[in-house]
């Protein structure tokens, strides 16, 4: 029964990605072109492996969480705004399965990137959980804002502004509201405080967003 339900959701998932057209490939450009190219650049210009790892880790934080909103926003915006939303809302009562499928699909791409860097530089899996948590926080917030505001622009600009804030102001009191970490995850304790709270809240956000999606006028 659960298997059949998943197959049905997958049959909707494929055309939903396909309808994005060329913009579907934007996360691919970031994950598989930009980040590896920057990594190769660091390897060419730096001798110290640890500092290369640190730079790559910061690039991961800069690009991977932000790109997690791309498929969520551009894949699901037709359900909440525009000419097709009225028709789609009649046939689709919940966006939660779609959100998790899109997010899972994205994380699968991230796993491939981590595998590449694990081969090149080793010792990255400690950061994987952090990046997944940050990605879920970005994607969940974007999805929630999309469902609440019913427009693509607010979540996109909101997350872009937060991304800029996170890149520029990770110090002092501002660091408490900044998802980006200044240091790599060396052990579970680095992650648990404060990222377990972020993870818990991020898991709730999609449900909250779907609640607003289901709310009828």
């Amino acid at each position, binding site marked *: 029964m659960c298997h059949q339900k998943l197959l049905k959701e997958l049959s909707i998932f494929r*055309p939903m990605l396909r309808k994005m057209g060329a913009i579907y490939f934007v996360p691919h450009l970031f994950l598989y072109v930009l980040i590896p190219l920057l990594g190769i650049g660091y390897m060419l210009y730096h001798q110290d492996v640890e500092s290369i790892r640190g730079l790559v880790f910061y690039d991961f934080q800069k690009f991977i969480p932000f790109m997690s909103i791309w498929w969520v926003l551009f894949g699901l915006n037709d359900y909440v705004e525009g*000419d097709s939303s*009225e028709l789609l809302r*009649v*046939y689709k009562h919940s966006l939660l399965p779609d959100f998790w499928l899109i997010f899972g699909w994205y994380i699968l791409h991230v796993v491939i990137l981590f595998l590449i860097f694990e081969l090149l530089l080793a010792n990255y899996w400690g950061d994987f959980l952090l990046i997944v948590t940050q990605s879920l926080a970005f994607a969940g917030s974007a999805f929630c804002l999309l469902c609440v505001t019913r427009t693509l622009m607010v979540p996109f600009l909101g997350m872009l502004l937060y991304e800029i804030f996170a890149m520029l102001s990770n110090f002092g009191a501002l660091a408490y509201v900044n998802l980006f970490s200044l240091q790599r995850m060396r052990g579970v304790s680095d992650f648990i405080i404060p990222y377990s709270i972020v993870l818990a809240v991020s898991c709730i956000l999609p449900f909250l967003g779907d609640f607003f999606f289901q709310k*009828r*006028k």
Partner: protein
Amino acid sequence: MKITQCTKRFHKRIAVDRLSASFDTGVIGLLGPNGAGKTTLLRCICGIYKLNEGSIEGAENGVGYLPQQFGMFRALSVYQMMEYFASLKKIPKHAQKDEIERCVELVHLSDRLSARISTLSGGMIRRLGIAQALLGNPEVILFDEPTVGLDPEERIRFKNVVALRRHQGITLISTHIVNDVEAVCDTILILNEGHLVTSGTSHQIAQLAYGKVYMLSEDQESNLHGLFFVKDRVEEDGTSYLRVLSPDAQPGKQIEPTMEDGYLCAIKNY
């Protein structure tokens, strides 16, 4: 389907006011001027809007819906788009191909199955919208202004498609074009300002104007008095005639009313 005391308000404006109706299998026309509450009623039936009061029974098992305005995913082909809707409507994968071909054939788009949506004309997209509503042959299908943008041949084709469904379920057509509903609808509901004004067969609606339709020559126009509405001006044998609706006795001869006359009398409260 049973609609009981259906009321929908938007802030202080009442779009649908305590409307009650029940339908059996057949084709039902919702007729009314712009802003009468037709679209709001359809949106209430298909669950887009939450009712403020009342209830709607009989649409719980899913409906087919064609909204007044809708967009399609321009990057997809006609077949991919239909496949997407078939999946949304939970049609089993193995049955999708035949069902898509059946519906696309009905709207005369079989030769466009592999064409991208972006290459289709407005009328073709409208027909694709009709096809998606028919997918899965739902018990209830709601068409909101279905013939807008269709050429005369496609309008006739649409009427034939609707006629074919007559015994298969409830088909609700909302429009302000009287000709669209006259030929195919078993029952017609006339709405105005959120109220159900009257309902009946096209013949019964026409009879609302019985004794209220006059044909007079143009030079008699100055003799018109009381409430009247000049519906038409026609030229016959070099003489101009007026077709006038009026609840008051007027000069000229009384003629047999059409459904459009009956509709106008209902709306104007003649």
